[in-house]
Structure formats: C-alpha cells, structure tokens
C-alpha cells in the first residue's frame, strides 16, 4: 500500500494508507491520550468502539471532532491535537466520565493501575465542573474468579470485544439505554450462571476497577497466621517470569529464587512448585496419549485426537460450547489439581497430618484456577484439594503487605519433594509448552530411543492457531495448538466437522499467549510485547534446566515407585484423573 501524507500539529508524516489518525500521531511523536482504545496486535484484540471520545482531534474541513483511534487518515489530512477546542472537549469528556464514576479510588482494587485515574492525572483535572450528580448504580456480581462492579464501568467495551471477538465466548454485551447502559451477561444473570469460562481476560483488559479478580489475599494471611495449620504453597510456571513486574523489574525478568525466598519469609511451611505437578501431568497425559495412539493405530479412529486439559477456562469452554466433543480431552487433571491431590494424600501422609490440617495455596497467573479449585470433584468430604488460589498480582500484594522487597532478596530453592521439576514442567506456562513437554516424553517412551533434539521449534511461536507434524521416529504426529478461546473454537469446529487435517493431539490454552498472558498476571495495559518477553523467559528457564524431560524427574520416579504405582494405574486414576460435565448455559 502506498504511503499517505498527514500533517499532525504542523508536522508532516508519511503513514501507510489504512492507518488511523492515532497511528499517524504516534509516527509524528505526538502522544494523543486514549482510553477505550486497545490494540493487542498479536491476539486479534482491537477495540475500536471509539466510545470514550477522549482521543478526539480537530481535522481541517470536518464539522465535528474526530476520534483519532477510529478515523482513517487520508492523504493531505491536516490534524490538530492540541487546539483549545480539542482541549476543552477532552477535559469535558473526562469530567463527564468521572462525574458518573465512584470516587473511592483509595480503596479501589485498580488503584494505581487505573487508566482513568492516569488520564485524570495527565489532564491535570482539578475539579469536576459538572453539576449533575446522578450516579448509575448496578448490583455487584461476584464469582469465584472475578468481581464485576459495573458502577465503575466506563463503557469502553474492551471486555465485550475480548469476550466476543477474541475469546468468542459471548458472555458479555451492552444492555440498557442511555445513562443506564452497561455491560452485562444476557438477562443480567450472574456471571456464574452463564457461559463465562472464568478465563478473566475481561479483567486483563478492563481499564478501571469495573472488573477485578476476586481477591483472596486476606484468606492467605489468616491461614498463615493460624498455628494449627500447615500451609503449603505451589507456584505456577508463568508466575516466576511475571511477578518481578510488580516490583519494577523489566518484563521477562526471571525471579524464581527470590519469589521462593519471599514465600518462605511470608511464612509458608512448604514452598513447592506446580512444575513438579506439570511433570506428573506429562506422565499421566503422555501415557494416555500413547494408549489412545495405540488404539488409533489399531483402527479405532475415534481414539484421537486427544486434547490437553490443563487449562480450566478451556475445560469450561468445551463443557458449555462443544458438548459433542466432551469425551476427547485427556482425563488428566490440571497440574494445580494434581498437586492438590498429591499434597493432601502423599505429602500429608508423609507429614503424618490429616488433610484438614493442611492448607494448600496456589499462586496462579490465572483467575479460572480460582474457580477450578472449587469444582466438586476436586474435594474429599467437602475438604478441597486446593484451599486458596491467588493470582500473581495478589502474591505481589501479599509480598508488599509483608514489607518485603522482592528484588533485594537472596535466591533460594523450592522445597522437596514436590518442588523438584524439569524444563518440561516450566514450559507449561506458554502456548505450545504443554504439548512440547508431552512430545518429549512420549517420543522417548514410544520409541525407547533418546530424543535427537529436545527443542521442538515447530511447536513454538505466537500464532493463534499452529499446526505442525512431529516426526516420532518415522511416525508423523499431527499436532494442533491454539491459544485464545476464539482460536480454540476454530480448531475445535474443524475437529467436529471431520478433522480434515487429521490432527492427533491438540493443545489449547484459553489466554492469549498461554498462562504467561493469564488474567492473574500483572496488567499489560495493552502492551503485548510484555507477554512475548515472558515467553522468552520461560524458554530460557527451560534451556538452563539440568533435566528437561518430565519422565527423567527423579522426584516423579520416586513418587510412582513409593506411592502411585504406575501412570494410569489404579491410584493414579483415582487421584490424578477426572471427568467432565456438559453445561447447558446461556
């Protein structure tokens, strides 16, 4: 496409045709403030509602002001971003927004991260010159994973775009008219009664405190303070490459050791690693894969494909959206739940305490994990395998509460035995990682030969849907990978309609980028490079690990020998596998 010439505040710039005025202002080095606009190029997430009207600019020859985020630049266009007219409009629009916004910033979950707050600060707003005082109010909606406080909604529509266009879940849309317009599930049902998968990506993109996680930090503090309880913590792979951001470290900083030290200082009795459970997952899921592969090669066409089942939002998605495919996912529990099941049996027995005395806390990059932990099948006589789930952000809060400066800490190691893991366990944190870990083990178990090359580059990347053939010593395994539920829908629809690409195994992660882009991670504020840097860090950790295949993890070998027996054996089946329920929801 040819370039077009645009004049921004008397400065001439060339931009490709098809660019918006906002693109042109960036090229001109002019920073026009935006609010509703969000463009995560790599994940199809472009919110162009142009609803907030904060980014309006003056265009010569145009009657009214133009929203720069959604107005195409045209050749010869002359734009002014800082005229009196623009400044008055922007200030007034901001005043209008704030006039209908609760003023409880001090106690808001989004304080310090709120884009509306930033904007007010940037525009130097010192008073709200709007007389009217009506406030739109709505009932708070609280699920296990998140809280919808629509009083704080500014109708930016990011959550709606995320839920409908990117995730294709369709749980959220605009309702009501005028002043009472708001985003809501159908029929204003509570989110928990809808097709909501708890992926929490709406929270990840909400600019204000309208959508936040259901905070569980205080429960953790209480558990830690209880002398009767043994408090065990596990941390998911994606947490260690993101928690540093909460303490001012560059995105992609690896702070595993410091995080472990901080957890210990917080008072956790045992600091374990979800990566251990990830290795365990590979043994179970890998064995299941090989069994189903054998059946498939033996003529049972329905034995494959197998779908990964680590991601709880993904499980919710298939349960409500693809009931006809409910038998395809692996029956292996997610690493979080495997960890909980092992902690409250094997490890509790080791400590010689009843499961009720043990509190298992998960630190997850994810909000759906909060929901997953409450699923009925993951508890024994009402005592859940996982007691409390907090997000990466909440862990950051906890550490700050305890007056600990993470970046200044010594590095220490996870405790044993549930802290020992491999490179295969850590790559669970990124899209493509689970299937790569599975292939590393399946290859060696199936062929009984060592892998010629551990890195499966063909499975890595950031494309929404990736398909690759992996050569397992002559047997070509067709692998499908999707991240983001919209991409998963595309792949699943393909499978449902006859699986033309003959996929044998499919990995799905609900969040863009996988767990590194989870809704419990530090806010990316629209910068998708942050997610990519976390991905690089994950692969770096893998590369630096002495052991990189799950089946070579000595702690895994030990637990099978000492306790579980063999993968897919009787006890493994009881503790480490699950089943799915069709959900009929709106």
């Amino acid at each position, binding site marked *: 496409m040819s370039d077009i010439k645009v004049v921004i505040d008397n400065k001439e710039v060339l931009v490709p045709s098809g660019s918006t005025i906002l693109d042109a202002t960036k090229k001109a080095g002019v920073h026009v403030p935006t609010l509703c606009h969000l463009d995560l190029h790599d994940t199809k997430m472009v919110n162009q509602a142009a609803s907030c009207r904060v980014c309006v600019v003056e265009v010569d020859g145009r009657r009214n002001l133009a929203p720069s985020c959604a107005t195409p630049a045209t050749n010869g266009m002359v734009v002014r971003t800082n005229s009196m007219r623009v400044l008055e*409009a922007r200030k007034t629009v901001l005043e*209008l927004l704030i006039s209908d916004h609760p003023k409880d910033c001090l106690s808001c979950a989004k304080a310090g991260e709120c884009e509306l707050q930033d904007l007010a600060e940037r525009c130097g707003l010192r008073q709200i*010159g*709007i*007389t009217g005082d009506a406030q739109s109010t709505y009932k708070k909606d609280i699920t296990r994973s998140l809280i919808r406080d629509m009083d704080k909604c500014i*109708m930016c529509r990011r959550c709606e775009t995320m839920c409908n266009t990117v995730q294709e879940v369709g749980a959220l849309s*605009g309702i009501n008219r005028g*002043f009472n317009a708001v985003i809501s599930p159908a029929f204003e049902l509570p989110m928990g009664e809808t097709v909501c998968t708890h992926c929490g990506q709406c929270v990840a993109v909400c600019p204000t405190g309208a959508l936040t996680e259901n905070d569980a930090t205080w429960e953790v503090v209480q558990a830690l303070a209880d002398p009767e309880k043994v408090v065990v913590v596990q941390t998911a792979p994606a947490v260690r490459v993101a928690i540093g951001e909460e303490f001012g470290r560059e995105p992609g900083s690896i702070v595993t050791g410091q995080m472990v030290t901080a957890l210990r200082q917080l008072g956790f009795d045992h600091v374990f690693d979800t990566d251990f459970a990830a290795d365990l997952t590979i043994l179970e899921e890998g064995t299941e894969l090989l069994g189903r592969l054998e059946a498939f090669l033996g003529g049972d066409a329905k034995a494959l494909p197998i779908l990964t089942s680590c991601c709880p939002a993904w499980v919710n998605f298939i349960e409500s959206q693809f009931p006809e495919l409910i038998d395809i996912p692996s029956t292996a529990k997610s690493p979080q739940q495997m960890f909980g099941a092992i902690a409250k049996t094997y490890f509790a027995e080791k400590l010689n305490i009843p499961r009720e005395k043990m509190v298992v806390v998960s630190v997850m990059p994810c909000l759906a994990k909060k929901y997953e932990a409450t699923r009925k099948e993951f508890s024994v006589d009402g005592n859940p395998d996982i007691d409390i789930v907090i997000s990466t952000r909440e862990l950051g809060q906890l550490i700050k509460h305890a007056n600990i400066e993470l970046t200044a800490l010594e590095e220490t190691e996870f405790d044993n035995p549930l802290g020992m893991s491999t490179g295969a366990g850590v790559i669970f944190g990124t899209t493509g990682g689970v299937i790569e870990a599975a292939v590393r083990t399946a290859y060696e178990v199936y062929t009984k030969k060592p892998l010629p090359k551990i890195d499966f580059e063909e499975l890595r990347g950031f494309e929404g849907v990736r398909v690759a053939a992996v050569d397992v010593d002559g047997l070509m395994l067709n692998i499908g990978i999707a991240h983001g539920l919209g991409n998963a829908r595309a792949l699943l629809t393909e499978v449902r309609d006859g699986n033309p690409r003959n996929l044998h195994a499919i990995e799905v992660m609900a969040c863009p980028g996988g767990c590194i882009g989870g809704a419990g991670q530090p806010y990316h504020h629209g910068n998708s490079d942050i997610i990519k840097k976390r991905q690089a860090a994950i692969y770096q950790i893998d590369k630096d690990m002495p052991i990189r295949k799950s089946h070579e993890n000595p702690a895994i070998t030990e637990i099978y020998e000492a306790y579980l027996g063999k993968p897919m054996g009787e006890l493994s089946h009881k503790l480490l596998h699950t089943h799915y329920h069709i959900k009929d929801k709106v």
Partner: protein
Amino acid sequence: MANYTMHMLVCSGTGCKSAESDLITANLEKYVAEANMTDEVQVLKTGCFGFCEKGPVVKILPDNTFYVQVTPDDAEEIVNEHIIKGRKVERLLFVDPKTEKMVSDSKKMDFYKKQLRIALRNCGLIDPDNIDEYIARDGYHALGMALTEMTPQDVIKVVKDSGLRGRGGGGFPTGLKWEIASKNDADQKYVVCNADEGDPGAFMDRSILEGDPHSVVEAMAICGYSMGATIGKVYIRAEYPLAIKRLEKAIEDAREYGLLGKDIMGTGFDFDIELTFGAGAFVCGEETALIHSMEGERGEPTTKPPFPAESGYWGKPTNVNNVETFANVPVILLKGADWFSSIGSEKSKGTKVFALAGKINNVGLIEVPMGTTLREVIYDIGGGIKDGKKFKAVQTGGPSGGCLTVDDLDTPIDYENLIAKGSMMGSGGMIVMDEDDCMPAVAKFYLEFTEEESCGKCTPCRVGTKRLSELLELITDGKGKMEHLDELKRLSRVIKDTALCGLGQTAPNPVLSTMEAFWDEYIAHIKDGRCPAGQCTNLLQYIISEAKCVGCTACVRVCPTNAITGTVKKPHVIDQAKCIKCGACYDKCKFEAISKQ
C-alpha cells in the same frame, strides 16, 4: 358488473382506525347494500388523508365531499341523504375556522390548497391493499421502464438530476448515495428501507406505508436495479402493526404478480423484500445502528467511515433510504428529473411531508413544496394556533432539531435554511408551541427524550445528555444559577462536537436554540424565580384575590390537599406550603379570583 358512479373513501390510517373508522366502513357498506346500491357505490378503505385533526374522515368522489369527525352512527345518514336523496349532510362538513363557512369540496379547503402531494400522491386515494389500484395509478410502470428502457446508470442519473435528498433527516443526495453503492462491487448488496420512524409526534413514514405501500416496494426494486442489489430489507418498528400488515400484503401481491422475485417482468432482474422488526429504539433510525439491529446485534451506531455503502449489512455494500425518500422515486422516474427539480427551492428539490402537531388547529399530515414558508404551513395549512393563542415557536426536526420563532415565520423551509437557524429538517415532525409553553421546559422535555433514547455508547451522549437534562431540571425547578447557563453552553458545545452519531451530535439543539431565542425566559427562571409561561409548577403560586373572592367555597371543595381555608362568603386563602399547584381551584373558580403568579 358494477358500474360505480360514486366512491366513498374511508380513512383507514392508524389514527382514524382508532376512532372506529372500520365500523364506519362496515356501516356504510351495510346501508349501501340496504339501498340496493352496491353496484353503483363503492365503499373502500384508504390510507391517511392527512387531516387527522378532524378524523375520522369520509370522502365522497367524484364530487370531493369531505365529511369530518364521522362516527359509525353517521353512516346511515350519509347514505340516506347524500346517496339516496342527493343532499349533503351539512353537519358533517368542515367549517373553516376563519370564515366560519362550510367547505364541502376538499380541494377548496385551506388545508389542502397549498399542499402538493407527491410522496403522498396515492394516500387517501387508493385502496392500499389492492395492487390493481396502485397499477391503475401507473404503479410499477417506473420499475418496468427502468428495467426495459434504462441502464442502472440512467436510473441513477435521473435520481441525481432530480435533486432528491434524503428525507430521513440528513438530506444527503439520494442519487449520489445510490451511485456510491453501485460502484462498490460485491457478491451481494442490499437495499434497506428505514421505516424506524421515531421522532415524537411524527408519522409521515407510517402513513405512507399504510396508505401506499407499493410505492416503497417499487422504489426499492428500482434502487436494487440501479445498484446491483437483489435483496431489500425493510426495518420497520413493531409498533406499526397496520403498516406492517399493509406492507406484507403489498409484498405478497407484488410477488404474486411477479413484480418481486425472480425474473421480474421477464427482464432477468431478481429482487425480493423481507421485513425486519425493530423494537422501537429511537437510535435505530441511525443507519449504522439500524444495520446492527438487523444483524441481531445491539442497536448502536458505529463510527463512519466505513459507510454502509462500502460495508453495511453483513459487511456488504448497503444503501439505506427512508420511506418518504423511496416514495418519491417512482414518480420521479415517470415524470422526469426536470419536473421534480422544478419544484422546491434552489438546493432542496421536490416536496416534504410534515407531521403537524402541538398547539395548531389542523393537526395532521401535510406535504408542501420545499421553500414554503413556516407562516404558510402554520397559518394557511395548519389553520393557525389553537384557541386564538399567540404563536411562540415551532420545533422542527424532532428532538434533534431546534425551535424556530416568530422571526423565522417567513423563512422558506428547506434543508439549508433550517440548519442555518440552528434546527434541522429531520424526518419532518413539526411541533407548534404557543404562549403557554415554557421554553426551558420544552428543552428539558426533549433532553429527557434523548437521554432515554441514547444508546449509551459514547460518553458525551450517555453522560452528557443526562447532565444537560439535570441542569434543565434545576432551572425549571427554580434552583438554577447563572453559572448553570455557562455549563449548559459548554456541555452542548462539546456534545455536539464529540458525540459518536447524529443522535448525540444534535441532542443539544433544543437547548442551544431555545437559549438563543428565549434567553430572557432562562434568566427569568434563574434571577426572578419566575416562569413567564406559567408552566413550571415549582415557580408558580396560585393566589386568591381578596377583592374578587366571594367566598363561594368551590375551590375549597376541589383542593386535594386542603390547602385552601376560609369561611363562607369571606375571601379565602391558599396555604402555599400545602399547595401542590395542581390548578384545580384555578379551573373551578367562576369569579376569576384565583391567579397564577
């Protein structure tokens, strides 16, 4: 074989139907049959005559006798007198309020004299349920001509040359719109008819669809031919059941005749029409919102560009015109661009249909050439202000328009002039206000409307219109301050400048135009705590004049809050703390002892 020598046309529009016009028709048929005249006298239902003020209307042709405010009981007398005895039923004739003389011939009524009916050409003349009657009026001839004698470009050229502009509000040149849509290539294109008429008090489009549905069907097919579309969609509000019924019948009959469907008139051109029902959201009259609503999405506008002509219904090139615009098209093709462009003003060609409402004698539907002055519309056609009151203002363009005043009475009505006066053509609502109307309260009324009808998408409209109406509430409640006027101005300015769609961009017009023309009234509310029109109840006091009160106690008996006290035959007093300003005492007093202040 019937040889009709007399036709009795009974208005069967929504207004007259609600006044039992169907029963009038049935009774007329009954008495005609009793008189054994069914072969000579045809009784039939037509669309709206426009003279709704005096409905139900029965018109007898060919002598043009125009009976008004007819009841079902009058049917017998009409048949016996007019048909059998040849005498007019004088008590049912229209009496000109100016001359106080009976006018029998509708053509001689002031209401009709200055009208020129193009879009309404068949309304009140044909039976809308009878396709043959439409064909008899050259119906589908424009389509036949277009398909057999003209290229699509020829059709577009005629429409362009005619100067026809969108009658839905914006006034965009129709031919140009068609041309843009025709130039965007796609495997499928759509013609959409916007029948989501939402202005309070407006019923132009409804009346056309009820009275002459085929004109719209034909025009949509012509449009489809010109731009290469084979599917037409009518987005019509579900609150228009009669219009829907008539339109559905028209589409069905046109299909039966092969005037819709495959291979129309053997020319190889395919075109068919489907209806989509709207839920009555005002904003869905905005074309992008309308398209989203048709797609099953929330009815809310999106930023243009892309325009529907590039990416509309299901992302395909789509041409959206409103009902009245379409209704003009067949006759333009038949009579030619020159004929049409000879009517109207320099930049606004043809006629415009208006719905006259408010404090005007002849409430109803009228069609006048562009360039007709407000004075002609209000005083000649509209018969002046009700009860001899003084004209104060007229709101054109519905809630998006502005108030025009006495100073504007001689302004020729066209798109440009109305915008220059801070109002707009809109879809053609005209609400007339008299001296008793309080202008800040009028502005408040319109803002409350837009506030409720805003889709809530963009900030200026969602929050801004709410704040405007809150400010107006304060002012009309007597709690206004002078700085509120500055705030009204600033908010209005910014909302106009930043709102996403036409609804928000025009929402402040009623505020700005009333502030401009009736600044004194705003000041009176704020500085003097007084409502000059005596409408704002919080600024009102009912006072009993000691001199005039005879102590009859009538007021005491009607007062619902026992605010009035006094002994018989002595002057009474109103306790202002208890008074709720209902005005019951004021209406009751026979001695003019109670006054509003």
